[in-house]
């Protein structure tokens, strides 16, 4: 049981099973004094709430009454937050202050606490709260529900307002569905937690004047625009007094200012002029006759400054309307009677402020009527220049207008930026100044194209030139070979045929004859070849010489006398162009030309018989040398026989190192001793 009670108490305190707690002694036994205070506060609050409500019904601004009512209600609310009626009253009061967005939680709690026993009026109030949150469908349902629940007598009083709100909801739904090309930003550098109202800018948007009650009373402030920021925020001390000082319109050139002051219980419009940097003493703007009845407050210059448009409550209904007064010309001192701006502009509801654009034919004003979507909205109307009449007002749309209050619209001459005040949520607090930036014509991004107009740049033809190489003619140096052909016996000059052979190819390189008188010969041979030289003369054995001229040999001259041997029996000829590999007995192919010449000799002289002999130097053993020399002589014989030389005409013998023709002590000598010879054995 104790547990259930505890749970119930806990639930109650959490509001889960919220109950409407009346301000009765039985509910506050422990704090009777607090209860009495709370009840007194509620009473006082109720008086002000009623006053305020009457003003609302009379289409008159009443936020002061509601602010004051809150001052009484909120302490009572703190004492007992769970009373349906009190929650409703708190919400009600908030809705008509500059913080209407605070109303919703109280109204919802009121309905929750009261349930079916709730005051029908809470639905009307909830409708307003939903409207502020742009839940137009829900809002309209609430207003309709109110219409069905309220008693006919009270409903009669609120019928007009209820219908108005339902109309606003329909307008709101329509307007919020339309995208407008404007941004709205809170001007943080100017706003405070209190109210900032009535911003007015110069035509070029470089200066602003506005009002704030952040110090308690409303004072006039000014600021300059530098690099897209408002700077040098300062109080206009020459105009501010201990009471409320409210400016309404700055002249397009920033040199004059309209403000209103309360004199003898009535507000009138004054003008101050800028002397250097100081604002002068305000003087009555228009003739006193203009301002006989009612209060003239927020006013606007006309470009020619022969008219002033202003808000006045001096009309028949006592609600605020837009009027104007004019004079003949600038020099004229007397202003004409106040006249209504016309029925297109003024409504049966409140008109809150007016601003004439620098073109003189565009009027911006604020109204709770027309197609407002809630509270005051900003409208624009264009004057028909011919008829001089103002056209049907157009709602500036969202995001400038919301279900909250939007007032005091002022726009730059280029139409790019405008400033106004609003008590919408999300600001610094209370009424805040907002800046509307109009996008203007859409800025179209630019697309770009490009072309490769020059072919040689677009598609360069590659130049891959490389110098050609040239054929290298290997420089063969020449060796001069000169000498004489002599009879070996008599040393007489012999005219002989000299043939030069390229031993590697067997081809004849040159053929010449020695001089018959001198036996001389002279020729040049390119280096890099192995040459055979044969010398033939009639009656003589042919002679052979070998030159091996490797490449790169330096210039050389060989001077040689060649002794020819006649073909006498016993003549011996060394075959210098017969070659063997070291230690071997195979006749090398380089030897064939020489041997072929010997064969030719044998053929030419059929009676010739020869002995082929092989000889070595003295290097190595005697037996080896003899064997080698014999094998070599045999090899040469074999070659001759294989070439059809009668074997009977050729004998072969190896003499080893026994018959040297030169010294074995020198390399050259040993080379000369290593030879193949043939000897004429018969002729």
């Amino acid at each position: 049981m104790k547990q259930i009670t505890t749970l119930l108490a806990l639930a109650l305190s959490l509001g889960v099973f919220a109950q409407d707690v009346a301000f009765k002694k039985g509910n506050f036994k422990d704090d009777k004094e607090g209860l009495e205070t709370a009840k007194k506060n509620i009473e006082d609050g109720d008086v002000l709430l009623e006053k305020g409500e009457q003003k609302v019904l009379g289409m008159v601004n009443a936020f002061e009454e509601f602010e004051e009512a809150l001052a009484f209600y909120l302490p009572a609310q703190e004492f007992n937050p769970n009373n349906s009626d009190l929650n409703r009253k708190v919400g009600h009061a908030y809705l008509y202050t500059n913080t209407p967005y605070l109303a919703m939680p109280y109204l919802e709690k009121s309905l929750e606490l009261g349930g079916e026993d709730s005051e029908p009026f809470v639905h009307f109030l909830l409708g307003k709260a939903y409207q502020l949150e742009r839940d137009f469908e829900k809002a309209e349902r609430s207003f309709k529900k109110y219409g069905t629940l309220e008693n006919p007598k009270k409903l009669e009083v609120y019928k007009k307002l209820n219908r108005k709100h339902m109309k606003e909801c329909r307008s709101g739904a329509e307007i919020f569905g339309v995208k407008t090309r404007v941004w709205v930003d809170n001007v943080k550098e100017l706003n405070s937690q209190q109210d900032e109202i009535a911003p007015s800018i110069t035509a070029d948007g470089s200066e602003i004047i506005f009002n704030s009650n952040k110090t308690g009373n409303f004072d006039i402030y000014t600021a300059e625009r530098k690099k897209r920021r408002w700077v040098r925020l300062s109080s206009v001390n020459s105009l501010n007094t201990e009471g409320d000082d409210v400016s309404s319109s700055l002249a397009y050139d920033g040199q004059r200012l309209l403000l209103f002051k309360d004199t003898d219980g009535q507000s009138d419009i004054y003008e101050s002029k800028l002397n250097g940097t100081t604002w002068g003493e305000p003087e009555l703007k228009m003739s006193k006759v203009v301002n006989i009845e009612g209060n003239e407050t927020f006013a606007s210059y006309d470009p020619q400054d022969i008219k002033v448009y202003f808000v006045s409550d001096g009309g028949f209904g006592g609600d605020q309307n837009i009027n104007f007064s004019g004079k003949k010309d600038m020099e004229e001192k007397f202003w004409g009677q106040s006249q209504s701006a016309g029925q297109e502009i003024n409504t049966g509801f409140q008109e809150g402020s007016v601003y004439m654009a620098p073109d003189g034919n565009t009027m911006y004003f604020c109204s709770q009527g027309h197609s407002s979507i809630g509270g005051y909205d900003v409208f624009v109307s264009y004057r028909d220049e011919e008829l001089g009449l103002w056209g049907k007002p157009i709602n500036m749309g969202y995001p400038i207008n919301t279900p909250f209050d939007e007032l005091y619209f002022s726009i730059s001459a280029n139409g790019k930026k405008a400033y106004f005040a609003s008590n919408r949520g999300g600001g610094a607090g209370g009424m805040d100044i907002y800046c509307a930036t109009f996008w203007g014509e859409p800025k179209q991004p630019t697309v770009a194209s490009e072309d490769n107009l020059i072919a040689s740049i677009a598609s360069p033809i590659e130049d891959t030139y490389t110098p050609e190489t040239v054929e290298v003619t290997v420089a063969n140096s020449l060796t001069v070979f000169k000498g004489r052909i002599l009879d070996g016996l008599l040393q007489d000059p012999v005219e002989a045929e000299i043939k030069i052979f390229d031993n590697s190819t067997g081809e004849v390189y040159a053929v010449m004859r020695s001089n018959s008188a001198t036996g001389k010969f002279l020729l040049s041979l390119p280096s890099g070849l192995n040459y055979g030289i044969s010398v033939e003369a009639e009656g003589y054995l042919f002679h052979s010489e070998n030159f091996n001229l490797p490449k790169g040999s330096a210039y050389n001259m060989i001077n040689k006398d060649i002794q020819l041997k006649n073909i006498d029996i016993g003549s011996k000829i060394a075959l210098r162009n017969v070659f063997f590999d070291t230690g071997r007995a195979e006749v090398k192919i380089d030897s064939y030309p020489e041997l072929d010449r010997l064969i030719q000799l044998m053929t030419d002289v059929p009676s010739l018989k020869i002995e082929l002999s092989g000889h070595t130097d003295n290097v190595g053993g005697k037996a080896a040398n003899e064997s080698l020399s014999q094998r070599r002589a045999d090899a040469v014989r074999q070659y001759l026989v294989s070439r059809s030389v009668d074997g009977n005409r050729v004998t072969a013998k190896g003499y080893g190192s026994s018959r040297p023709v030169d010294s074995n002590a020198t390399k050259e000598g040993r080379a000369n001793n290593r030879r193949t010879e043939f000897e004429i054995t018969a002729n």
Partner: protein
Amino acid sequence: MLLTLFFLVQTAFAQEQVDSTLTTEEIQFRDSIAAINTSNERMQLIQETYNAASSAFAESNFSKSISLFDEVIALDSSNADAFYNKGLAQKESKQYTEAVETLEQAFSLDATNFDALFQQAKCYDENKESDKAIVAYDRLLSADPTWGEAAYNKGVIFYLDKDYQQAIAAYSQAISINPNYAYALNDRGSCHRALEDYDKAISDYLKAAQSDAQAFIYNNLASAYRKSGNTEKAIEFYAKAISADANYEMAYNNRGTVYFETENYDLALKDFKKAIEINADYAMALCNRAAIYHMQENYTGALADLESAVKLQPNNATALLNRGITREMLRNVDGACEDWQKAYDLGMEKGKEYYINNCE
């Protein structure tokens, strides 16, 4: 050292002693053989050095090539080819003044080597001495009126100097030498386009394309049609450019802009995307795709592309202008103003207009 010298003297003396047996005729013969030997060795050295110089050239080692050709020239001062190739190596090394002089020497040694004159002109051209280049090309054309490339290159110089009439004359000369000279036809078309004579431009581009169906020629043709207002033909020939080269991103981009201007945004987007797919660093296409995204109110996507474009080309005035526009829609007014100011500084008047109207 002294011993070596003594030995050499002895050898020479010994040689001389041998030589003292020679007759006058034999001495003369011997000397002639010696001269032949020296000449042959010299010739071999010249040829080997020349080939080494050529190899160095082929390996792009131009300083070495120049040095070796100098050696050849030192051995054989009448070697026109060595002068010519040395000149080319100097040109490759951007030693243009020296190259011109060397090539002149080559030509003086071989007056049939018109290549030397051509390369001289190219030296002036590459060294941005346009007037001298023109004179050099004219000299070549006087010597050999059939040198079409000389006339063409003249045309390019005039075109880049924006002297379109002279350029047309030069290209026409090249075309008269070779009526199928696609490059000259293309470039002459570009001259006509610059002079806004689009019919002539189209005619030349068509002939160029018939001769050499390269993508850039089709692209130029398409752009000429576009300039003349014939968007249908423009699209047709951009497609042909793409057929000629499936990776010619420029044609995709250009066709995309035609689609954009005719409000076929889906097709435009497709083309810009393709251009970027081919070349992810194609700043112009990134900028253009951003324009589509902006039109579709995809400002975040547009900004991403524009950031890339500006990063690639910090002085791209169009990209900066467009980024400013997108930044404005994203409420970065300071950033937008900064971009428009810069766009104006880079010569875009629209930047000034936007800055004045929105930033002051």
